[in-house]
């Protein structure tokens, strides 16, 4: 007699493919496939499929309801030369100062990022360093500004924008992004 064995995942990572193109969805699916094989105790979810284009508020509501440990937004855009840009959400530089709130507090959408702003920046910086070790062209530092796809996300979150000449040719970078994400998730697991 077989007893089904369910492993309750210890944590959740939510990956959001940017709304610009469906190519981002395919990239995210490949990444989730690889990461799920690597981390058995983590469940990896995505916010949309190739036919869906939820708006920022719907995505933020969905993400906050799931309440993942880490939220990663992945975007593909056209650029003359390949380059990675990493973003976190800030409305003011002072948002990085520690803000405390209880679970019963009402937090408006434009203030949701404040609770984990510093952690988000640290995690994004770690991801940037990991990309640099993979010898990928990246910006010098993480750009923190009101980046709309991260608006309203309460958990630790950052976004990656990959600029490539042809949107369909993201395959050469998949392996490096995958490796960089493994480093970030492992470091995040150790610090948690």
């Amino acid at each position, binding site marked *: 007699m077989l007893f089904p064995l369910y492993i309750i995942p210890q944590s959740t990572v939510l990956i959001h493919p940017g709304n610009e193109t469906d190519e981002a969805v395919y990239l995210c699916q490949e990444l989730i496939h690889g990461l799920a094989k690597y981390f058995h105790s983590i469940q990896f979810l995505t916010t949309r499929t190739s036919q869906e284009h939820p708006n920022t508020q719907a995505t933020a509501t969905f993400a906050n309801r799931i309440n993942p440990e880490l939220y990663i937004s992945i975007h593909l855009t056209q*650029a003359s030369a390949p380059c990675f840009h990493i973003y976190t959400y800030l409305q003011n530089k002072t948002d990085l100062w520690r803000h405390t709130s209880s679970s019963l507090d009402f937090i408006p959408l434009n203030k949701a990022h404040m609770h984990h702003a510093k952690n988000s920046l640290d995690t994004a910086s770690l991801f940037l360093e990991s990309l640099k070790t993979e010898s990928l062209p990246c910006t*010098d530092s993480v750009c923190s500004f009101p*980046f*709309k796809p991260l608006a309203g996300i309460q958990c630790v979150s950052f976004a990656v924008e990959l600029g490539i000449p042809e949107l369909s040719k993201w395959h050469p970078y998949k392996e490096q992004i995958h490796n960089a994400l493994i480093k970030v998730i492992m470091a995040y697991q150790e610090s948690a």
Partner: protein
Amino acid sequence: MKNRLFYPILCTTTFVIGCIFFCMYHEWLIVFWNKPTLTLSYQALPTKKTILLYLPKSTDTTTEWKKEKAEIVLDDSALTTEANAILQKWISYAQEQHCLPMNVQIDSVCISPSHNELYINFTHNPLNKIKSAYDKYCLIESLLLTLRQTDARTCNLYLLTKHQPILDSHIDLSAAWPVQGFSP
């Protein structure tokens, strides 16, 4: 004695007064009834100011700025006048460098009564939809960097198109951006 001098003095006096009024009537004699004062109405002279216009350099990995000196003539010291003059120059420079489409112009620049919020209303959306978030962010940072040379450096900036917040898929402009910007 008294009575003998009274009438000649009266006649002479009235004659002199009559002469004076006759001269005044014919404007041969002008009398300033109100004492002229030396107060001057203050009107500021137009001033010339040299500013630096910033635009992002076309490198994808580093945030570097192209700079160009420009001169603006200010009729008064109002912040909106100064900001408007600088922005007009910045737009012309950005259009020369093909960073902005030619139809984008400044419609109006306003400041809140508390002088904490500056509103810039464009005729068209200055952010190109197909550009990356990084390009758009650098363009806004270059605008903020240029504005920091005015007294608006402590303000928060609202960017509008047709009196509504600019809608963009990457950049959240529904809230005010600090003119101090986000770049380190």
